[in-house]
């Protein structure tokens, strides 16, 4: 096997074709000892190694410099620049500096966007480049002592473009329990008299109820049959929400962030693969639903550019469907829209928590939602039919 054609010129950055590890279909089931197989493997390996050897850097024009503060386990940036600080860091000092936590700092350095220097506490911000030690990545990892599972999830989502902030509990500011209205009827003499005459019925759980009450449609019967389930008492769990995550939005502001799109809990299962207990999940849902009181405003995505591609089958079907809908009566259209969004509510539940499972460095995401079969607190359903009970058995319009 010749070695010459495997060596790459050093000053050329590898392009994607060199980077690409063979895809699924191109892999083979077992080594057969042939030179072809061996050299194909060698090429893949060399491509990988050269990618690992490439430089982590940014141009001097975008120079971004941080100072590591060992005592606070954070990184101070005197002159923040670039688009990274939309969601990262907290303002610090009067001169517009920013403090990043260890995870954020590590992420920026690792992608080559920032260089961090180790100060000894006495260096001035201006000459840190000459008086501080430029940290290499391994030193920074050793100093930062991040929880690796959390860092992996953070950088994974960041690389995909999500906006992420550490989760801070707001439980202290919000009253935990809403006062429950209790209207208990005390049966008195007059009520008893009315029942005897057949004017007033017994309440729905009384054995005499169906003997004394007259029904004129099914919905009312179903309603009276439904159990008045009390909400499950609040529990305390061992899991903590780690991150708040938003889909990429250009208008994001870290001073007054909107309600997060996702709440992510990082769970390291390297030594214990047990699923979170019911109490844990319950507590997470309670925490999220208590902080997410305001309904999330649906951000309208900007109109898509018309692509030159011919419309796909899916698009054609949706278009035909929309045309058919528009020919229907107004009230029917309204009902169909209502049923559609009701199905969405049933399908997705109400409160969602994302469990990010990390096992020995491999990542997996699990979505846990609380079922909402009674369809309570569904504002967009209330908007269409205000005083209606939305449960699935009440199908009268």
């Amino acid at each position, binding site marked *: 096997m010749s070695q010459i054609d495997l060596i790459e010129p050093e000053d050329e950055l590898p392009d994607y074709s060199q980077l690409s590890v*063979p895809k699924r279909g191109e892999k083979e*089931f077992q080594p057969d000892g042939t030179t072809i197989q061996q050299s194909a493997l060698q090429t893949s390996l060399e491509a990988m190694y050269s990618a690992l050897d490439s430089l982590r*850097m940014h141009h001097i024009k975008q120079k971004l410099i941080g100072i590591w503060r060992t005592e606070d386990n954070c990184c101070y940036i005197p002159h923040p620049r670039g688009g990274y600080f939309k969601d990262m860091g907290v303002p610090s000092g009067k001169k517009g500096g920013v403090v990043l936590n260890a995870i954020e700092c590590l992420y920026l350095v690792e992608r080559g966007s920032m260089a961090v220097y180790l100060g000894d506490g006495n260096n001035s911000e201006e000459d840190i480049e000459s008086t501080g030690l430029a940290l290499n990545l*391994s030193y920074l990892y*050793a100093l930062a002592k991040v*929880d690796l599972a959390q860092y992996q999830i953070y950088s994974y989502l960041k690389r995909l473009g999500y906006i992420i902030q550490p989760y801070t509990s707001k439980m202290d500011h919000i009253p935990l329990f809403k006062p429950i209205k209790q209207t208990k009827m005390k049966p008195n003499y007059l009520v008893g008299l009315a029942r005897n005459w057949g004017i007033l019925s017994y309440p729905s759980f009384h054995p005499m109820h169906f003997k004394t009450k007259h029904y004129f449609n099914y919905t009312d019967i179903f309603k009276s049959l439904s159990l008045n389930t009390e909400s499950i008492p609040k529990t305390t769990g061992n899991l903590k929400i780690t991150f708040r995550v938003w889909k990429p939005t250009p208008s994001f502001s870290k001073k007054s962030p909107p309600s997060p799109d996702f709440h992510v809990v990082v769970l390291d299962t*390297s030594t214990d693969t047990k699923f979170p207990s019911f109490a844990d999940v319950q507590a997470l849902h309670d925490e999220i639903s208590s902080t997410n009181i305001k309904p999330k405003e649906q951000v309208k995505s900007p109109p898509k550019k018309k692509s030159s591609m011919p419309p796909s089958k899916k698009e054609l079907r949706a278009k035909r469907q929309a045309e058919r809908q528009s020919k229907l009566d107004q009230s029917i259209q309204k009902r169909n829209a209502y049923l559609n969004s009701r199905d969405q509510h049933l399908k997705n539940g109400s409160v969602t928590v994302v469990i990010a499972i990390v096992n020995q460095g491999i990542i997996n995401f699990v979505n846990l939602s609380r079922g909402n079969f009674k369809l309570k607190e569904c504002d967009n359903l209330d908007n269409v039919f205000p005083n209606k009970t939305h449960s699935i058995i009440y199908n009268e319009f």
Partner: protein
Amino acid sequence: MSENELAASKPIVLPLIDSANPEVLIFNTTAIRRLRDEYGILGVLIGTLAQYPQQNVFLSVPLKLMVWEVIWLFEQDVCVLVDWLKYCNLKKDAMNGDYKNKNLISLDKKKADTKPDFLITTNDYGEEDDWELIDQCKVTLQSYIDKYLSSPNCKTTIPQLISNYHKFKHLKNEGYFISPGLKFGGDLVIYPGDPLRYHSYSIIKFDFVDINEIIVGGRLATGVKKNMIIMESSHAKEQSSVGLDVANELFSDPTITAYSIEWAGFG
């Protein structure tokens, strides 16, 4: 002895980073090559690849090693575990405040006197491992295991760790390439050769109690053209962990029995 041979005879430096869990992370690309080429140790790359920072398919240093991989390298006696923070601090102190940062470079190598135009962050100290300092920062296997087991997130017991390591070692010594197995819901995944080129054979499960899990696992494995393997070690699990010489126990060689399970649909 040529320079390459000299380097190859040195043990591989494994930096131990003391975070929430004690983590062994490799930053040196030569060490990553040696681990893969000489010992078939894969690890998991977890860092952002700086040239393509917006994707998750190709990642870069650091390379995270599993606890079993670290123990196996110890048993082969080819590595030295280093308290990395201590080592870095000693290196810094040795410079006496005269840092001479070399992180400003010029990519245009043709002109010798061009102004530097790029700011870089290196992986680590490059090739210049300082063996005098490393000797001062060595961590023994025993104290690594102690740290690993006593970290608040760790829910493994010593007998469990020993038994799982024996199973790992059995597979490793059979010549398989081994990766963590979460992708297929197992404990490990094994490959007949380097996973860059070859598909994996089998999903490994260490402990099984539930027959339903065996059926689910076997059926899933068959569905993705693999088989599922469950393993049992002859090593007595019920030993008291008091006064146990962990290193000795880890390096012992109990008989390992492995069962391969495929989903058999009759008819």
